[in-house]
């Protein structure tokens, strides 16, 4: 039990929040509400899983929010232009992958740090989405696109089904496959990876393509929900994706990934948002709550590490003082 808790410490706050909301509200435990929370969590969890790989590699991608917008725009515009829906969705995913490829090339071949490179593509891609739509909504009415979020194969909402599949795949990939271990190897010690002959650049590019594609998929989910695409969608989404990864316990500096942590963090954040809605809290306070939660969670994590790790290695205090 305690070992499981150490691996997924978010279970405790999640249970507390659920208990609190169950007692304080009438509607939280209703089936429809729970499903609503899980669908929203699933929508952020899928790109969060891709971002988990990126952080495990010791890097992050800020351009995702804009990719969401561009992918939604590409998909909706294509549908408006008469492109078959499946092909339109594929185009949107390709657009996301292409943005990822650009990020990967800029980071590896031009040697620009990921923060700057993806900050730049964040701005550029947003500009592309706005330019393409000339600032207008691309409104569609497509049941096929709607199915992506609203469909219920086997009675399970489509996003939840997809998130479960993605979680299993991500967990297996990062913990058990060669590629996943390479990603963690690069995050753990990139120079060592280079000297040991790992194809470091190819690994990094692959991860940016993965995150870009996931961003495109996120855009499809949003387009499916709203039945439109425009240049304003996905503002700040990149931070949502990074938040669930960090809150889930993946090391910000790379080397270790917590796939289940990412999923739990997505559920926790959506539960809190939902609860605050039910308690009629204005959206501004919801943002403040999520921010405070992040600080609290990471502070607790840091404290725990300091207690358990002990001064066996070089104490940080020595480094600070001597340097």
């Amino acid at each position, binding site marked *: 039990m305690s070992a499981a808790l150490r691996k997924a410490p978010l279970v405790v706050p999640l249970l507390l929040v659920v208990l609190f909301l169950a007692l304080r509200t009438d509607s939280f435990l209703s089936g429809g509400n729970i499903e609503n929370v899980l669908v929203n969590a699933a929508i952020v969890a899928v790109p969060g899983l891709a971002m988990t790989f990126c952080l495990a590699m010791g890097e992050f991608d800020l351009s995702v929010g804009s990719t969401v917008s561009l992918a939604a725009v590409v998909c909706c515009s294509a549908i408006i232009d008469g492109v078959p829906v499946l092909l339109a969705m594929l185009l949107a995913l390709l657009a996301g992958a292409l943005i990822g490829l650009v990020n990967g090339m800029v980071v590896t071949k031009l040697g620009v740090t990921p923060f700057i490179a993806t900050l730049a593509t964040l701005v550029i891609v947003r500009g592309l989405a706005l330019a393409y739509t000339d600032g207008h909504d691309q409104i569609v009415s497509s049941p096929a696109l709607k199915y992506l979020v609203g469909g219920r194969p086997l009675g399970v909402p489509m996003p939840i089904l997809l998130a479960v599949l993605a979680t299993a795949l991500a967990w297996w990939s990062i913990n058990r496959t060669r590629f996943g271990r390479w990603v963690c190897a690069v995050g753990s010690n990139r120079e060592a990876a280079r000297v040991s002959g790992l194809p470091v650049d190819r690994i990094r590019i692959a991860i940016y393509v993965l995150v870009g594609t996931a961003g495109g998929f996120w855009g499809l989910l949003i387009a499916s929900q709203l039945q439109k695409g425009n240049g304003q969608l996905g503002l700040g989404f990149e931070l949502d994706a990074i938040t669930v990864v960090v809150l889930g316990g993946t090391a910000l500096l790379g080397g270790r990934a917590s796939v289940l942590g990412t999923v739990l963090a997505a559920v926790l954040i959506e539960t809190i948002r939902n609860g605050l809605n039910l308690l009629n809290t204005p959206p501004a306070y919801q943002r403040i709550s999520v921010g405070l939660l992040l600080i609290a969670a990471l502070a607790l994590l840091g404290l725990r590490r300091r207690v358990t790790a*002990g001064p066996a290695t070089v104490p940080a205090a020595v480094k600070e*003082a001597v340097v």
Partner: protein
Amino acid sequence: MTADNTSPEDPPLLHVDRLTVEFPGVRALDGVHFDVRGGEVHALVGENGAGKSTLLKVLGGLHRPSAGEVRLGGQPYRPRRPADALHAGIAVIYQEFNLYPDLTVAENVYSGREPYGRFSRGIRYAEINRRSAELFGILGVHIDPAATVDSLTVSEQQLVEIAKALSVDGRIIVMDEPTAALSADEATRLLDVVRRLRSEGRSVVYVSHRLDEVFAVADRVTVLRDGRHVRTAALADTDPDELVRLMVGRDIAAAAPRAGVAGDEVVLDLAGVSAGRQLRDVSLTVRAGEIVGIGGVAGAGQPEVSQVIFGALPITAGTMTFDGAPYRPGSPADAMAAGIGFLHEDRKAAGLLPDLSVRDNLTISVLGRLRHALTRLLSPAAQAGVFADYRNRLAIRTTGPDQLIGQLSGGNQQKVLLGRALAPGGRLLILNEPTRGVDIGAKFEIHQLINELTADGAAVLMISSDLPELLGISDRVYVLAGGQVVGHLTGADLTEENVIMCATTERRIFSPAGV
């Protein structure tokens, strides 16, 4: 000379001919010759900056030569990337380990060559764990293949690197300063591993500053100086004095003579100090003008002693007295304010600010003092003054105060950090491994400096895993084992045998007080 399969008539397995490597403005290697025979241990020695690391990096596929040729088994060998070197059977173990701390031992050993299932794509963990265990069996050690590397000791990590080299079936295993971070005991075991590798028919290129190891394990030795080949000889045909002379290009004394005179005034006194389970009931004194050494096998509590004195590790029992007053630092800042200078054992991880100039690196600990009285702005003139002062005293060889510290040799970097520890002007200096990874010439200079400091009345507490250094310049030595003081040696008792005896057996040796 020890192995029969290294007859001089055999064509060499690896042949380096007139190798030149140039970097912008520097010729790191200049027409170097070097060869390795099958099944021999070939030592490569030279001061820092002699070109050893550059040669290793050419062999490992990290640097490309500007001229010259390398032949492996008679064929041209031109690795373009590290993977090429591994495929050719040349495994280089660099001084900075190339391990992934977050991954398991087996994952590290088979990194890049993991066997995996065709359909599941899953790594075959049972297989790599078993094969890793077999490799450790060859090396005669027990390391859990499923443990993460960050849970291992430095010497175990070294063995993981060697297992990695074996796993690619390295015909030539190149080790760069493999014992730099090991205790004497661990180093002895490593030398056994090197001999095992040779008996397996593999060749080892052994780079080391420690000539005793070279003479203990190598068949031949090549000396490099300033990027040039100086001499290659069978170990039987040379001796340590000659090698030192060839390395530095001049004769130097083996150890600096003691100049300091121990006074009676006790500067630091520890009485029954404990720190959790890491230190138990440690009592020691350091007097003005004295160099007190601390020895023992790695992990016996040496760094922890320096950390409690420097306020980086809280004490759980006992008392400390500094300069005659009770002393209980809550942080390194307290310790510095009280007048204690500290040199960390890990120059790279906890010392150098590689992107800053030598001036900034040296004065960083005293910047508060170098501000203008009125404006509170940093005074470049005062900073330059302090730097010039230490540059002269410590004989720091640099092109100027603005040179980046990363461009200096290890020995000069260490002198800058020594200056940083001295600049606050404390009465007690704690030196952790003051000459680790510096060349013989700089080592001698640093020893002289420590001597001069004590002659001026400073007290020095030195932790060193280098026994000749510990015995050569300390007035007294405390030996630690399991976080306890198990020996106190002075005068005629200061011998290698006594230190090793105390550190590794039940025997306790306490020289009579008042020596």
